[in-house]
């Protein structure tokens, strides 16, 4: 199986020069009446190095050869973020750079999939949604009833995002871990 340009999107994992890469940013563009270009910011999943590549229709790509294993998030310590395979008790540690924003969406005992390139943990696939409590946000401005107004809020893991104006500190909210965006308040 191989991918074509029309498969390219943020998060897709490709093998480039023998190493796994993930598309960190993606944009389709097409100047005037010219041919389509696919602009990718690629992250080398081993070294973390970022670089730009522009592809055009007709090119093909091999999927990254990675193993994905079910694991549970245990805790964070000075070595990094520790995950364990509940069947083999094998542990894998990922550092903050590798996890990037995903580290903000980890909750104790969360079931995740750890990506392995050989023995090495190089990424995590989280559940699509996570519930986190808002710890800080500006108070609701009286009279601001417009349905579309938003404001910044910080959640318990330190992550900051835009939320509707009616969300207050202490509210449990659902976040889409794929986009990092607010979804809804959670009924408790």
């Amino acid at each position, binding site marked *: 199986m191989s991918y074509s340009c029309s498969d390219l999107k943020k998060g897709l994992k490709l093998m480039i020069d023998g190493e796994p890469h993930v598309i960190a940013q993606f*944009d389709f563009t097409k*100047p*005037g*009446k*010219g*041919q389509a270009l696919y602009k990718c910011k690629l992250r080398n999943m081993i070294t973390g190095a970022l670089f730009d590549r522009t592809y055009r229709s007709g090119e093909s790509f091999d999927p990254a050869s990675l193993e994905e294993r079910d694991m549970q998030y245990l805790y964070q310590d000075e070595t990094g973020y520790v995950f364990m395979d509940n069947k083999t008790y094998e542990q894998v540690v990922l550092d903050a750079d590798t996890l990037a924003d995903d580290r903000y969406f980890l909750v104790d005992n969360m079931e995740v999939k750890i990506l392995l390139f050989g023995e090495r943990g190089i990424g995590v696939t989280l559940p699509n949604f996570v519930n986190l409590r808002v710890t800080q946000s500006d108070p609701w401005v009286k009279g601001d009833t417009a349905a579309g107004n938003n404001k910044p809020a910080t959640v318990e893991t330190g992550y900051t995002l835009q939320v509707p104006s009616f969300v207050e500190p202490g509210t449990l909210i659902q976040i889409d871990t794929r986009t990092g965006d607010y979804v809804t308040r959670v009924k408790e």
Partner: protein
Amino acid sequence: MTRDVNWALAHKQQTLFKRARIIQDIRAFFIADDFLEVETPHRIPANAPEQHIDAVASDGWFLHTSPELAMKRLLAAGYARLFQVCRVWRAAERGSRHLPEFSLLEWYRAEIDYHVLMHDCERLLTHLVPEQRISWQGHTFDLTPPWERLTLHDAFVQHAGISLQEALQENRFEEILVNQVEPQLGQGKPTFLIEYPAEMAALARTKPGEPTIAERFELYIGGFELANAFSELNDPAEQRDRFQREEKQRRDAGKPPAPLPEAFLNELGRMPEAAGIAFGIDRLIMLLTDQAEIAEVVAFAPEQL
């Protein structure tokens, strides 16, 4: 079940109010300037065959990729000043500035060439933004006319240090244009990128006395391509040749065949000297509402359906 409204839709409300207002202002501008607003069919038997634009098939016909052919048939029938605001469809185009279904403003005028359309663009933007300044994602643009006119040739030399000829020969034209030239265009003040190689403008007439250069321009603000315009070709034999060339390139690239628009070709000989322009409304609204993603200026992006 969620108990809140769909936030992805709700938060666009302010932008969509502005969007509606901008489109009303565009209409007011053209109506006050004695243009006739027309509506032409969205579903047509044939588009202009173009190597890099793919139409969406619809029950044996196609959704139009632009209202251009119908607008020109009206010019050929004696209509002198026309505009249209409509949805158009282009297959597989989705990016931060592309939607597969998007809104185009097109206007056409008899007895003028593309220089007059550049003035029209300056007047339209001055009408929409009376303060003549826009601020977008931290950049400010001064809209006071006249705007910069820069030939494609000079743009490549100035911004990429390579001649247009060389870029074309090395098959790197689009890549250099997108990565090196476009980001420099329309910074501070809008830029008209003018004079394209004739083979990049299948529907444009060439510059008098210079058969290799087409009277085509694109308008850029802040690196954004906003509009594409040209002095229109009205020689039916030449137009048929060019369509056949585009169609052959499509076939060579393994693309589905595109029928020739025969009714258009039959009437093109009656079309007077004219110029026309396609202006991307969604991108204009992005600029005027300070949005970085095209999905933020329409109610629904395809992924939200």
